[in-house]
């Protein structure tokens, strides 16, 4: 009995074979998964987004998806997940990208060396042909010793053939020298896959068997690389081709001279879509016309028939912070359209292959705050959802980098819902205030990042990142992803918002709200120079930062006060969901320290600003 037995983690029928989909990132694995199972998974261009194991059913058997990895070991979380799923597999469908065969076959050969039956899906053959790459599929199959099926998954080509041949998967050819080493180790551990990983120095697998990890990783890797290169020489013919337009565009995105204007252009597009079109035009309709003019009178009237508006229940349900008024109006009228807009934009960016190029461009700059370019990915994703972004900090190379990125996400990166409300509040105040807001947030990020880089122990890692081909995002994929993410958002945010509103409502009817407001007056009125009612916004902010910002809507503030309030609430503690993720990723002690520091820093910087401007 192995502790990593998959059946303990996922619920699959008894006697079902475990068919595992494995492959490098961005090879179209998820398209296979959707097609084989008919079930939805999150398709993404970036490693880290399919970290959860997804599985579906094909006939009597289970299909299990794995995160995209370049090899099986324990260099990062994705690899550990992929490793354990592959170790438990009955059959592996290995999806390889025909354009990057040389890279992808390293994983293929490693899985073959693990002794699992494999079938290879040679995907994106159309793209390879366009790039002048010719592949002898039959010879490839002979040399690997496993069936190889040609596919163009997005056009559904070759998928039926793959399904029909699935059970012809077999154990491929392993280099003789390695085979002999494996046999010796096999006697001790009983599984060729585990034997291989122990030889390759995987500490976790070795520990499971009470063995010391082997020191032959480099030797085995080099031999495998040699074998793959040799194989490539025989099966691939590369004819000359002109650098494609996409390749050229990809280069422009990286070089700052062209890359900075491109990034500015992308940001401007996002601003136009989210802050202008959605925040003003769409929200103007959904919030003003639909919610405030139509829904609110309707619900107030309806509930008003049952309870008096001034009664306790009336106040809780349809009052200023009413569960049926404020919650519904903010969630559906304001947040929903904005979050939809944001997620569709971010999904398109994720799928296009643009993010790793931004990472390369900003590598140097992020070096100042102890991060390498890769960290730009959690930051950009953080503008969508800080909680999800916190999970992707795992792709950073060292503990120090993960701590810095997690803290900065919690402090200085506002999420889409929060930006939505901020944009709506800033909309009336002119460009100057908006620029001031962005500049202040950026300054805080740089100051705190620099300090963390100085005080946190440990080393930062170097940038080494795969630049996937630029691809036009597929509308279907972007829509699916946006819908799923928006749905998760609504499902998570609505009850929290309702609880928050209810709590404030109860504080209000019990008179506690006034007491808290007076109690916090030195902080709100004295230090931040805001009206004492702003305390309500901060109480809401403990639940979710965007609710905090939403709580500012009803206050009458001067432009300076708005700026101070927005900076404070933007820096304010992360929402409950991201707080929980931080605990999971960083442990209770560090999470508590981060949370408390963020709270103090938010009031410190907010007050500093108020004092300077005041």
């Amino acid at each position, binding site marked *: 009995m192995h502790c990593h037995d998959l059946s303990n983690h996922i619920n699959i029928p008894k006697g079902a074979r475990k068919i595992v989909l494995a492959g490098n990132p961005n090879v179209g694995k998820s398209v296979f998964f959707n097609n084989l199972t008919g079930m939805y998974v999150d398709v993404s261009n970036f490693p880290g987004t399919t970290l959860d194991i997804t599985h579906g059913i094909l006939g009597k058997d289970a299909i299990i998806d794995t995160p995209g990895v370049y090899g099986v070991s324990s260099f990062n979380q994705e690899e550990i997940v992929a490793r354990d799923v592959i170790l438990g597999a009955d059959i592996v469908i290995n999806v390889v990208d025909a354009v990057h065969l040389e890279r992808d076959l390293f994983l293929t050969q490693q899985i073959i060396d693990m002794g699992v039956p494999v079938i290879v899906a040679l995907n994106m053959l159309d793209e390879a042909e366009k790039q002048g790459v010719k592949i002898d599929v039959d010879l490839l199959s002979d040399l690997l010793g496993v069936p190889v099926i040609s596919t163009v998954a997005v056009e559904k080509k070759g998928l039926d053939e793959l399904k029909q041949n699935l059970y012809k998967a077999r154990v491929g050819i392993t280099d003789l020298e390695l085979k002999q080493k494996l046999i010796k180790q096999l006697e001790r551990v009983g599984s060729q896959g585990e034997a291989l990983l122990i030889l390759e120095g995987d500490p976790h697998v070795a520990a499971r068997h009470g063995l010391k990890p082997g020191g032959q990783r480099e030797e085995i890797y080099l031999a495998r690389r040699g074998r793959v290169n040799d194989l490539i020489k025989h099966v691939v013919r590369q004819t000359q081709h002109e650098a494609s337009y996409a390749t050229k565009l990809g280069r422009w995105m990286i070089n700052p001279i062209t890359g900075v204007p491109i990034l500015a252009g992308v940001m401007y597009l996002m601003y136009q879509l989210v802050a202008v079109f959605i925040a003003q035009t769409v929200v103007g309709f959904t919030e003003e016309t639909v919610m405030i003019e139509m829904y609110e009178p309707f619900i107030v009237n309806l509930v008003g028939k049952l309870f008096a508006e001034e009664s306790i229940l009336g106040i809780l349900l349809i009052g200023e912070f009413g569960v049926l008024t404020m919650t519904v109006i903010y969630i559906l009228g304001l947040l929903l359209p904005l979050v939809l807009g944001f997620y569709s934009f971010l999904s398109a960016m994720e799928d296009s292959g643009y993010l790793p190029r931004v990472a390369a461009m900003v*590598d140097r700059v992020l070096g100042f705050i102890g991060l390498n370019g890769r960290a730009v990915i959690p930051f950009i994703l953080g503008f969508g959802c800080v909680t999800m972004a916190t999970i992707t900090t795992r792709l950073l190379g060292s503990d120090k980098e993960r701590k810095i990125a997690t803290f900065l996400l919690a402090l200085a990166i506002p999420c889409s819902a929060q930006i939505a409300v901020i944009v709506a509040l800033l909309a009336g105040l002119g460009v100057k205030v908006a620029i001031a807001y962005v500049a202040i947030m950026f300054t805080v990020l740089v100051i705190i990042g620099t300090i963390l880089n100085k005080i946190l122990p440990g080393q930062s890692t*170097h940038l080494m*990142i795969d630049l996937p081909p630029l691809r036009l995002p597929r509308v279907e994929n972007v829509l699916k992803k946006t819908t799923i993410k928006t749905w998760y958002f609504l499902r998570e945010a609505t009850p929290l918002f309702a609880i928050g509103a209810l709590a404030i409502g109860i504080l209000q009817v019990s008179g506690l709200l006034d007491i808290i407001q007076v109690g916090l007056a030195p902080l709100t009125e004295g230090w931040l120079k805001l009206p004492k009612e702003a305390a309500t916004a901060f109480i809401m902010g403990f639940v979710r930062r965007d609710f905090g910002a939403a709580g500012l809507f009803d206050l009458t503030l001067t432009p300076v006060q708005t700026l101070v309030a927005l900076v404070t609430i933007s820096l304010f503690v992360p929402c409950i969901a991201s707080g929980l993720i931080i605990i999971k990723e960083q442990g209770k002690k560090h999470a508590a320290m981060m949370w408390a520091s963020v709270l103090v820093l938010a009031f410190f910087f907010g007050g500093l600003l108020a004092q300077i401007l005041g």
Partner: protein
Amino acid sequence: MTLDKGKKGMTVKILHIPDELIRSQIIRFGITEGAVIKCEEVVPAGPIIVSRNLQEIAIGRSLARQIKVEQISA
């Protein structure tokens, strides 16, 4: 010379990569000691973009500084 001295369009042969962990990771992209790669783009003060066949990788400058290479052609 070291990889960070590479110029755009230059073809170089990798002579030495110092860190075992880096060697084990970069080997998967087809880059080993002895491999011939092309410098596709050099970001001023930033990473070097190298390619081997159709595979492109961005290598941070601090890492490139540690990788010993030999120029094959300009």
